[in-house]
């Protein structure tokens, strides 16, 4: 295998994955087939792991990634993980802007920080709030939020600004699209993360992947024990440091002619650049794991002790803070529930229950990007702390399209089941409540019936009222909680019909009406 082949195949795969996934997340016109986003989401490590562990689907991508990593290192991190590729792009852009090459240096690993983040995530998952931890820290989901919440509205604005021009030159393929901005509460996380990424990339290469990212740490541990590892042929090495200059992870130590393979993301830049062809894969299982200052292995090593105590302290601190926050949230939740199944926040059809949804969803926002009406919006504190940034149904913005099951189609981690349309038509995510005193028909004595007009199941219907008016009326059994009535109710300041969510979703009654008959059977004109 030629040395160039490795790097360029990595670059080609990475760019293809990144372009396709970004297109899926940014697509505001439903031009990109939904399956592209779904597939590329499904092959990501965390969504696949969540789907497998929760039994949502037999998703083997995580196992394949682990096996590949154990064989040849962290190929996932620089070729498949969109956040990893995004950092490469940021790296290129910032270096191009500053017209500066990377410093030729080796960075020491921040082992205790890495372990703290990994173990905190694992303990959080075991303690039952993995959904929360993973949604914060999964690299794919973090990329999804940046793409969906920042890139997408920006692309929409860019599109809107050129529609007029396109029309003038006679090209009518473009049209304006309402940009959907996440609320400021939910938007701050992706914005802060994007800024943090830029800063980290500028100061220290792949600091995110090799310090904060639990997937990076986990795969790094496997990579450290990989069957084949990139190694420097000491006899060939002239110590020209060309490899150091191109190493994204800054994990090449020329003094000891070693590569910290736990931090190497298998980008193959060094393989490509080495004129002596001195870097390449070597079968490494016959060797001992390199003992060096990078990974102190001596049992009584004081450094190791410090590492363990720091890690433990970090975990304890994070878990403690989380516990306190969660406890306070449960308390306030308990006080506001009038009925056991009541929920002030509504999760999408197919998510089965708020609890299951929060456990499984990693908040990648693919469903938010793909939702044709924009009814899915990222939550801020509506679900409480554990549900921050997870999608919720926002009936102020829009309502759920009756025949649409797109969120279930695209969801990569099985948080939203794929319903068939007939099942979706009966899936009850909430129930409308009518506040007839606020209804326009009552307050204004004029016809309205916007709610009944939009109701797809006719749970809201009209009955004769007053002087030739029609008043909305509700059949709870038929309501699926799609929010159309609430969205269009014109009553001000408070809507006269509001959907209340169900914590555990249920079923609406199916009504089959007989065939309608002619109002006045006649073979002639009635006029």
């Amino acid at each position, binding site marked *: 295998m030629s040395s160039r082949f490795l790097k360029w195949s990595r670059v080609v795969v990475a760019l293809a994955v990144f372009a396709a996934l970004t297109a899926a997340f940014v697509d505001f016109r439903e031009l990109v087939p939904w399956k592209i986003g779904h597939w590329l989401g499904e092959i990501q490590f965390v969504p696949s792991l969540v789907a497998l562990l929760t039994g949502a689907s037999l998703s083997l991508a995580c196992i394949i990634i682990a096996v590949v990593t154990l064989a040849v290192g962290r190929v996932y991190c620089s070729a498949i993980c969109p956040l990893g590729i995004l950092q490469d792009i940021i790296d290129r852009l910032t270096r191009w802007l500053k017209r500066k090459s990377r410093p030729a240096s080796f960075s020491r690993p921040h082992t205790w920080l890495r372990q703290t983040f990994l173990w905190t995530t694992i303990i959080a998952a075991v303690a039952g709030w993995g959904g929360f931890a993973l949604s914060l820290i999964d690299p794919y989901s973090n990329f999804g939020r940046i793409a969906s919440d920042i890139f997408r509205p920006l692309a929409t604005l860019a599109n809107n600004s050129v529609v007029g021009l396109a029309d003038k030159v006679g090209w009518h393929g473009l*049209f304006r699209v309402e940009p959907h901005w996440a609320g400021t509460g939910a938007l701050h996380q992706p914005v802060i993360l994007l800024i943090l990424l830029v800063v980290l990339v500028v100061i220290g290469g792949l600091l995110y992947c090799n310090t904060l990212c639990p997937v990076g740490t986990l795969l790094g541990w496997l990579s450290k024990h990989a069957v084949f590892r990139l190694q420097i042929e000491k006899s060939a090495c002239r110590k020209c440091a060309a490899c150091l200059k191109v190493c994204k992870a800054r994990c090449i130590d020329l003094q000891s002619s070693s590569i910290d393979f736990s931090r190497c993301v298998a980008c193959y830049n060094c393989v490509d650049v080495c004129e002596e062809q001195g870097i390449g894969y070597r079968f490494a299982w016959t060797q001992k794991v390199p003992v060096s200052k990078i990974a102190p292995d001596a049992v009584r090593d004081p450094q190791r002790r410090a590492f363990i105590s720091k890690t433990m302290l970090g975990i304890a601190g994070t878990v403690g803070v989380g516990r306190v926050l969660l406890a306070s949230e449960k308390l306030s939740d308990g006080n506001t529930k009038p009925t056991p199944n009541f929920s002030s926040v509504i999760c999408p059809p197919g998510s089965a229950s708020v609890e299951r949804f929060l456990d499984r969803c990693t908040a990648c926002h693919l469903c938010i990007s793909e939702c044709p009406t924009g009814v899915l919006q990222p939550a801020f504190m509506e679900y409480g702390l554990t549900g921050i940034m997870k999608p919720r149904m926002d009936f102020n913005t829009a309502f759920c399209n009756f*025949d649409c099951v797109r969120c279930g189609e695209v969801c990569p981690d099985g948080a939203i089941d794929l319903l068939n349309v007939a099942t979706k038509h009966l899936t009850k995510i909430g129930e409308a409540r009518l506040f007839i005193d606020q209804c326009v028909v009552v307050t204004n004595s004029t016809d*309205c019936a*916007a709610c009944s007009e939009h109701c797809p199941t006719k749970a809201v219907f009209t009955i004769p009222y007053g002087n030739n008016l029609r008043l909305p009326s509700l059949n709870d059994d038929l309501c699926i909680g799609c929010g159309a009535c609430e969205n269009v109710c*014109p009553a001000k300041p408070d809507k006269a019909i509001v959907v209340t969510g169900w914590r555990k979703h249920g079923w609406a009654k199916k009504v089959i009406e007989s065939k309608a008959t002619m*109002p006045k059977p006649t073979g002639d004109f009635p006029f």
Partner: protein
Amino acid sequence: MKTRRAFIKAGLAIGASLPLANLEKLFAADLPVTNASVSAAPLRAKSILVAVRDGERAAMLDKAMAALGGMEAFVKKGQTVLVKPNIGWDSPPELGADSHPETVKRVIEMCYAAGAKSVSMFDNTCDQWQRCYANSGLEKVAKETSATLVNGKDGTLYREVEIPSGKKLQKSKVHSLVLDSDVFINVPVLKHHGGTLVTGCMKNLMGIVLDRGFYHRVDLHQCIADLLTLKKPTLNILDAYAPMIRNGPRGKSADDLVVMRTLLVSTDIVAIDAAGAKLLNHQPSDVRHIAIAAEMNLGTMDLEQVDVRRFKLA
């Protein structure tokens, strides 16, 4: 003297209600006319309503238009045409919630055959607009006929206009295609409506304003009538081939439809809606926006006063 003054007044009023071309005829007929015949209806140009039964959609439309002198009577060479179907719902043609593609397609073909420079369509939809356009079958029609299907949700395409004769709706943002097109053809589908009893031609024009909610909040029926004082369609084509007679205007299933195989065409939007109401077994006066529009002299609700031309194709 009193009778002569009354006669002149009446004559002026009638003259104002007639197209310029007919004025000569009116004055030519001046002298021999007696008082009695002036106050009676015949001198006032009667609205024409063509009603066709028992044919396929395109065939009924062909028959109706032929009875009105063909599409050429409405669309002149080089004119821009707006065809306004009902595309409000993400619903397939067989559920009858949107204007049927067959009817709309034939209308567009007729416009082009008459020499139209361009034909455009849009609707400010209730459901998500791209799905409405695609699933109603009208996107396909636009492609097949090379009509332009325009985004009805783009607020920048609407212009705020004053509606001085409106009682409740005195200004509104109206789609520029309505304001700027030479010819405006209204092609709705007849349906039951939970709020307004019946939805036909007048109600379909809610889809040309940006803020539909204003209508609902203020006075649905009055606003529907008020908008007509701004601009009335050149021609109204009401498809009653298989009207939805319950669960309207969205409908639940094909069981909500009854097959009537009827098509109505008129330049009088009130008369055509009155006939539509009768097809659904309602008195036109019970449908408040029809009654209000008639009262505001926007058309004739009393079908006795309309020149109804009936055709049966089978």
